[in-house]
């Protein structure tokens, strides 16, 4: 396998009964890349992402993530990835520090290192005063930032972000993307789904899914040229207009 | 009105989307009506009895034969000493041991001081008492016949004419069904309703509903309607099975019974609403409902007789709505009494309904402010 390729999907398919949520998709993601995964609601983005994370078993096809295939060695995949789900999924009856310690412990990081990293992380985020705050009482934007920091806390090769900025204000979104860039600079590959077309512009490469299939995959600039649009919005609209599925 | 209808429809959709729960809510009551008839029994039968015979004579073998041929008894062993019997008791292999003293026949006929001892496993007191009584009866009958054979006069005899009123076969299910109905209704109206409302608040969708132009009370009541319907469906199903399949009597007025049940359902719904206004999480709502259902099982007279409870428990039992519902149900269904006989029960249920409603309303308002 090419050393630069950290995700390689081949004919990845998920069927629920006679409904094919993800239909034979194939693509590659390179190391250190910010890879945008676009699609309307119900296009099959989340299903595809859950297969890549080893949360869901492919019905057909396979994918190699961080050097392991997701069909049979999904537990090995999990050691090298981070994941932030669409729905906020930290323990809201634990404090900020307790959540970080828990996941640090689960990944088998040494206790001392975890303590140091927590201090550094909280300082970085400007969260020092919230160390012992119950997660449930944090504002949404802070929760999202915390969830992202947690998903890369164990220094994974790849982080999967499922609509990470849903429901937060533009300022926080901006700050959030700064965090994403920082992570990418550290060499973490970022695989992100989003609804926001302006966010798609921030990505190195973008794929657009329609009805379970990948219809376009290239850099934002190339896509705009290819589909003759001014912005990613035009590209997206041109492709998604023909969608049969959706809300 | 159109909005109200759509609210109610939404609640139904929530419930119908979860066929597993719905199935259980509809099947469980039926199982609970049918099962107790078979498993809640206090019949004493198949009494396992061991014999220790220190005489081994004509008389003891006659008594042993009588025990062995009696359909209630099942002769297991002939043991040598009490030690062996004790082991059998501990291993739960016998229920009774009958011990004949030495020189039994001789002492029975001449010195009149023959010894028989019955040892019973007293773990379960009622069963133990009845088992011993049965064994005593067999022996007494033997002695009586012996005296008659000897030409001795029979004693004075008091014949007992016995009437078992309302439930001549003493079937446990007759007593149990009204209680089962009370519990099912409480489960649906109290647990399901409170959890449904708390869940809506936990996920934040309650806010959206409250922001609609409909009055709050209407929104809340709309949430209660589906559970009212399920309760009524269950009630109908239980009644059909009870009356047609299980042969539970419906001696009194069906309309009167339905009216009482309806009031009880409303009381239970209000209790569920009250819980949901005070409690914040689904888990807590479930625990609180569970903690309400347990005392109901014990204190409502559903399984255990209230009259044999200590006085404080009897006093506390008065606040349990199910107690009044069960009392009224038994009177109407089984004894077939007139409406005037259940007025007290009905009035108390209505009073509790109003108290729960007012409390729920008060807490609800303070929450909103």
């Amino acid at each position: 396998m090419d050393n630069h390729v950290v995700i390689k999907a081949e004919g990845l398919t998920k069927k629920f009964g006679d409904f094919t949520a993800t239909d034979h998709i194939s693509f590659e993601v390179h190391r250190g890349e910010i890879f945008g995964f676009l699609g309307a609601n119900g296009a099959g983005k989340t299903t595809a992402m859950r297969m890549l994370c080893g949360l869901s078993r492919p019905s057909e096809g396979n994918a190699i993530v961080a050097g392991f295939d997701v069909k049979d060695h999904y537990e090995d995949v999990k050691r090298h990835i981070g994941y932030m789900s669409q729905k906020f999924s930290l323990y809201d009856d634990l404090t900020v520090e307790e959540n970080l310690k828990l996941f640090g412990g689960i990944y088998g990081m040494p206790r001392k290192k975890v303590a140091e990293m927590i201090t550094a992380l909280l300082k970085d985020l400007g969260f020092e005063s919230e160390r012992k705050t119950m997660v449930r009482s944090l504002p949404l934007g802070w929760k999202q930032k915390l969830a992202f920091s947690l998903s890369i806390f164990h220094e994974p090769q790849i982080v999967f972000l499922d609509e990470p900025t849903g429901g937060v204000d533009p300022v926080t979104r901006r700050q959030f993307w700064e965090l994403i860039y920082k992570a990418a600079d550290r060499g973490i590959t970022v695989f992100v789904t989003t609804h926001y077309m302006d966010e798609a512009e921030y990505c190195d490469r973008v794929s657009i899914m329609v009805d379970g299939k990948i219809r376009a995959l290239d850099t934002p600039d190339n896509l705009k040229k290819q589909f003759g649009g001014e912005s990613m919005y035009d590209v997206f609209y041109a492709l998604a207009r023909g969608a049969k599925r959706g809300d | 009105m159109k909005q109200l209808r759509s609210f109610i429809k939404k609640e139904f959709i929530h419930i119908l989307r979860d066929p597993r729960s719905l199935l259980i809510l509809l099947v469980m009551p039926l199982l609970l009506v049918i099962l107790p008839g078979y498993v809640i029994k206090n019949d004493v039968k198949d009494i396992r009895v061991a014999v220790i015979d220190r005489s081994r004579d004509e008389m003891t073998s006659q008594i042993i034969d009588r025990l062995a041929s009696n359909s209630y008894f099942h002769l297991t062993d002939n043991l040598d000493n009490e030690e062996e019997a004790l082991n059998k008791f501990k291993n739960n292999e016998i229920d009774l041991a009958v011990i004949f003293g030495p020189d039994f026949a001789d002492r029975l006929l001449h010195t009149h001081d023959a010894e028989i001892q019955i040892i019973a496993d007293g773990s379960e007191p009622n069963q133990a008492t009845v088992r011993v009584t049965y064994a005593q009866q067999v022996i007494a009958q033997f002695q009586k016949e012996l005296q008659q054979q000897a030409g001795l006069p029979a004693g004075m005899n008091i014949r007992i004419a016995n009437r078992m009123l309302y439930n001549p076969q003493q079937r446990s299910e007759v007593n149990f069904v009204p209680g089962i109905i009370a519990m099912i209704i409480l489960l649906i109206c109290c647990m399901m309703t409170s959890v449904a409302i708390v869940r809506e608040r936990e996920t934040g969708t309650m806010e959206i509903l409250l922001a609609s132009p409909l009055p709050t009370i209407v929104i809340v009541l709309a949430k209660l309607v589906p559970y009212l319907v399920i309760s009524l469906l269950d009630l109908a199903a239980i009644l059909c099975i009870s009356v047609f399949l299980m042969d539970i009597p419906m001696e009194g007025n069906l309309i009167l019974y339905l009216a009482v049940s309806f009031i009880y359902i409303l009381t239970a719904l209000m209790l569920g609403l009250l819980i949901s206004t005070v409690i914040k999480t689904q888990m807590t709502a479930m625990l609180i409902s569970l903690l309400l259902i347990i005392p109901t099982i014990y204190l409502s007279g559903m399984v255990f007789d209230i009259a044999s409870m200590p006085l404080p428990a009897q006093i506390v039992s008065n606040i349990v709505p199910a107690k009044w519902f069960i009392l009224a149900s038994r009177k109407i269904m089984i004894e077939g009494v007139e409406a005037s006989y259940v007025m007290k029960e009905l009035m108390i249920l209505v009073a509790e309904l109003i108290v729960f409603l007012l409390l729920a309303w008060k807490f609800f308002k303070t929450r909103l402010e």
Partner: protein
Amino acid sequence: MKALKYLLVKEYKQMFRNIVLPIVFIILPLAMMNVVPKVATQEVTHLNIAVVDQDHSDLSRRLVQKVSASPYFNLYASCPTYGVALEQLEKGNVDFILTIENDFEKNLYRTHGAEVMTSVNAVNGMKGGVGNGYLTQIIQQYAREISVDEGIIAAPAAEVKSRFLFNPELAYKPYMIPALMAMTLILLVGFLPALNIVGEKERGTIEQINVTPVGRVEFILSKMIPYWSVGLFIVAFSIFLAWRVQGVIPAGHVWEIFLFNIVYILTISSFGLVISNYSDNMRQAAVVMFFFIVIFILTSGLISPISAMPEWAKKVTLLNPLRYIITAMREIYLKGSSFHDLLSQFIPLTIYGIVMGLWALKSYQKNG
């Protein structure tokens, strides 16, 4: 197995941060050991009876006296007619009516035979049946007594003595308390695990765990161990309460109680986790678990003895974990049976526990 420690810290913190749970852990055993044994009694005593004595003779009055002197009956009213007494019964004031015929005394002296009538409210069949048994005994005893007094018959030649082992006072408490401990446990360490995993599913937190390399065994153990410890605390607390408050102490060894309960808690908490793993939401899990708890309690011998059930129902009880623990707990408390005597309960319960534990493990899907 390193992650297990962290997962356990999390479970315990969550358990004790819930305001209601720790209170319930204390309140429920308190109620089950202090209040319920007084309430959940099938002791039939102080039954209210109305007497209709139409004879007003010496012999009839002596019979009435016999009845009211018995610990089983409480003479509620003397009624002039059967109709008046029946009204008392319909109102629920009395459950028994004893009617003595007009020429009771005369008939007894003349023909050595007279008649009485007992009417019983048999809605509660058990109470009616046992009470009627007592009444019959009193009347027969009385007939024999007057026969001997009048010199008609000699005293019986063989006196039957009876003795009750294990529970000589025939009290219900020591019979119910061991069973109530088992019931307390299933309500807490059976019901709560059923809500646990599905609760994480509903909140979405389980996704964040599933995407980590944490092992299945570790995860399920982290769910089970807290309930184990809480369950054993409840066992110890209940034994203590039964002893201090009710004066009920086990005739057998305390270690036997703990050994049985360790296996029992494994069984019911795994059962709860299995239901949790298969459920879509908390409400569904609660309804399903409640269903099983009710069925288990009905067929466990808690309310009525298994020996009185029909054969098929006895076979069904073999599938009920409560049946084994309740039988074993009663034998330990009342009879002091040795562990060897209890193997017939221990082996099936252990098999049940292992099967449930493995099923809980298997049904937890990290990768659907």
